[in-house]
């Protein structure tokens, strides 16, 4: 019995002696509660739809006004007027807007003549949550329009025709981009976090520091080695994941080349971030403690599992500073829409800038002494 108590006492004493560990072990589930609680199922807002009014007469203008009213009140979407449908569709394909509403040229005349005209909603269906929200909102808007928005003595009603730009995207394909980023993050966490601090604690770095190796060579060496490992992980996921998720034409060389480029950029960004976090850490427990925390904090707010447009304001701000957001968006655009770099220019710029800033900060903080 005494021996049993001794074992228990020893464990509890260790637990008490590490208050940080206790706090962190509570932080993780709490953070999961908050982040995951708001990450799923929120009302989708702030989608962007292009409105092409090819008619321009009163009934059409009235419909446009109702669209703007929804934008101003429910905020499910914001409207962007387009004069040219071709331009609107190009922006839709590049992911700048989520849908295009086209009011056809004869809309008003047909309506007043008692024919039932059709309003077209062409939508980006790579995100099923957003596209269903948009279609739902438009259907109820037209319902309201037909109910009391029409001019008096009108017997006809307008109907909605929904056109999806891409083939059906199953959820596994929607999830793949986030998974690729997660694989890169895991490699960065293992190599740039856990293994880096373990080597430091074992004195391996002490062995390096007594040689004439420069600070720059050390930092770049650690970073590029980490990037290569993370690149390998990411690349395996790009290929294996595409096969598992059933991405059409998985070996399209141009798309693969685009994706590998984003894998490299993401790996650089995440390794630099990890190096900045770890640059002054000595305790091998720390990277293990923050592993789960970082995972929750970076993965779920990025839009990898659910669109960021459903998040509350604070979480959308968080997602704007999260490198995962840009990497996930980049991969989503390349995998699901098969576009080029033009559609992900902001993602590329952010990841490159993030790498430069975190790497510079880590270099300043890195000490070449013990």
């Amino acid at each position, binding site marked *: 019995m005494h021996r049993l108590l001794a074992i228990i006492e020893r464990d509890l004493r260790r637990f008490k002696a590490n208050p940080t560990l206790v706090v962190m072990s509570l932080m993780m589930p709490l953070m999961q509660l908050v982040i995951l609680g708001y990450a799923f199922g929120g009302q989708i807002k702030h989608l962007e739809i292009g409105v092409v009014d090819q008619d321009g007469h009163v009934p059409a203008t009235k419909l446009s006004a109702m669209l703007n009213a929804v934008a101003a009140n429910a905020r499910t979407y914001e409207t962007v007027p387009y004069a040219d449908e071709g331009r609107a569709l190009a922006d839709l394909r590049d992911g700048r807007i989520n849908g295009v509403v086209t009011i056809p040229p004869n809309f008003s005349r047909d309506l007043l003549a008692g024919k039932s005209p059709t309003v077209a909603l062409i939508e980006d269906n790579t995100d099923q949550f957003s596209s269903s929200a948009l279609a739902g909102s438009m259907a109820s808007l037209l319902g309201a329009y037909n109910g009391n928005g029409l001019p008096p003595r009108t017997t006809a009603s307008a109907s909605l025709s929904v056109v999806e730009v891409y083939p059906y995207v199953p959820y596994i394909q929607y999830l793949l981009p986030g998974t690729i980023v997660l694989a890169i993050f895991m490699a960065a966490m293992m190599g740039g976090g856990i293994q880096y601090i373990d080597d430091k*604690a*074992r004195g*391996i770095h*002490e062995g*390096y520091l007594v*040689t*004439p190796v420069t600070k720059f060579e050390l930092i770049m060496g650690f970073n590029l080695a980490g990037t290569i490992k993370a690149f390998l992980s990411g690349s395996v996921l790009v290929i294996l994941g595409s096969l598992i998720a059933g991405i059409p034409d998985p070996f399209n060389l141009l798309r693969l080349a685009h994706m590998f480029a984003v894998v490299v950029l993401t790996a650089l960004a995440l390794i630099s971030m990890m190096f900045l976090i770890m640059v002054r850490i*000595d305790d*091998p427990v720390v990277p293990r403690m923050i592993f789960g925390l970082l995972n929750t904090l970076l993965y779920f707010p990025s839009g990898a599992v659910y669109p960021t447009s459903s998040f509350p304001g604070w979480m959308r701000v968080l997602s704007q500073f999260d490198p995962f957001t840009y990497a996930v968006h980049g991969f989503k655009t390349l995998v699901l829409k098969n576009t080029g770099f033009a559609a992900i220019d902001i993602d590329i710029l952010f990841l490159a800038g993030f790498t430069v800033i975190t790497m510079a900060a880590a270099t300043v903080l890195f000490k070449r002494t*013990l």
Partner: protein
Amino acid sequence: MDRALDVEIEDLSKYFGSFCAVDKMNFNVKHGEVFGLLGPNGAGKSTLIRMLTTLVTPSSGHARVNGFDVVQNPNGVRQSIGVIPQAMTSDLDLTAWENMTIFAKLYGLSPQKRKTAIHDLLGAVNLLDWADKPVKTFSGGMRRRLEIARGLVHEPRIFILDEPTTGLDPVSRVAAWEMLDRLRRERDLTVMLSTHYMDEADKLCDRIAIVDHGKLVALDSPLKLKTSIPGTNTIEVSFSSVPADWQRTLESLPDVATVKSDDGVYRLSSNNGPRTVLALMDAVHAAGISVASLSVQSTTLDHVFVHYTGHDLRDAAHKPNPAESRFIIRR
């Protein structure tokens, strides 16, 4: 600057906050000598070595290694020294040859030179047959030998070892000593090592600096240090009981130079051990007490250490040094 001096230390100090790890130390190390830093854990040996190997910046004073100032020209220092840190720093997943190659590259050796140097050094430390085996399969002694070889891969002028044999079994220790001695002679090295083993300092070193609480308390050759303290024998004795004025009785025994007592154990330095012991027995008999324990030894560095520091090496309380991260995994 005297080119015969490989290490020059002037008023060198290191503070960690208000804790003084090294206190105004002064000494030089001549080319070709084996110089030992002897002291208990926490005496400041490792901090001193870390300042000399550019790992820790001094708080005040100067240190030059091979003529290069450790603060002004750290790269000159790094190129001149081979270092074996206290922790075993070989990569366990890599082979011996791979470990050597990485360091040869860090020192900028050409591929041709690299191959010859690694081959020669692994041969010199008897590890050629193990060159392609991962280091995780090595014993502690083999890992130490590999690190000795690794530290010499760029043909340094000065070889600095921080407690090179701590944690090794007696046979491996002797093997490491012999290897070090041979390498030093073959390669014309200056060797500076820290140790808390008296026998190691005695056997290996031309000169020994005794360090305690960050201060240099004595510096000379082992022989001179031993003759610098009174008596050629040390008698350690304890008694069943201690009569009044017993210390003075002991001091009056023939050939006794000094008497020190510590927790009931009397330590007598004598110029003639056997004669003093005979007289001691008579005195014990006359006082009507008995001897509880008795040992007679020739003076060793242990006694020198006790003489200069006032305490046993093994008894020295280990004050944690803030420079020693608690996360460093030591052997």
